[in-house]
């Protein structure tokens, strides 16, 4: 199983950490795959969605 690094505080600006939790196509990896706690998964999800809005992470790999 792939190892996932968790930060001390979740930060939408720390894209290196968040990139672990998205697939190649830009989807958020589900909790059953990441295996992290539900609370942490929610924090990851929220950070990823903020980072996407600010164009730090892609929504999909289909962007032109």
């Amino acid at each position, binding site marked *: 199983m792939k190892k996932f690094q968790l930060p*001390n505080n979740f930060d939408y600006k720390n894209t290196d*950490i968040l990139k672990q939790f998205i697939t190649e196509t830009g989807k958020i990896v589900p909790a059953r795959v990441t*295996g992290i706690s539900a609370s942490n998964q929610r924090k990851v999800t929220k950070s990823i969605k*903020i980072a996407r809005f600010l164009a730090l992470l892609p929504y999909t790999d289909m962007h032109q």
Partner: protein
Amino acid sequence: MNNYETILIINPNLSSKVADFQKKFEKLLTDNSFEIKKVEDIGRRQLAYSINNHHKGHYLLYRMQGDPKNISEIETKIKYDEAIIRHLILAVKDLSGEDSVLLTEALENKNKKSESAEEPEKAVKEDKKLEESTKEVSDKEDSKDSPTEEEEA
């Protein structure tokens, strides 16, 4: 009094006039009785996807303290400012005085470029390798932002 973090993405064509823009925006904040705790000029950065046909954006980050009533006023001002291609105001619990990861990244990239690209491969590495390299760098600098490792079998 609440703590806020404001991120602005400025039109990259106006990147050279950012200093003027910052003055203007800081005046707007102080006029609305916001106390600016920290300003970060992250600089031009590649966008993950194009916004209004821009592929790059100039990122600015403000950490500030102020009254929630005045936020809407700033929002409307930002909305009609064509220089700003995207913005986000977040309420946060604590305002950290440390540099954000984005700023440290930007500074590192600048240093790398000025070192006349000793190892040009480094910039274009896969995710896993990139994590390792950032780890090394953070170890060297003893940065406080270095992530904790939690291994899960």
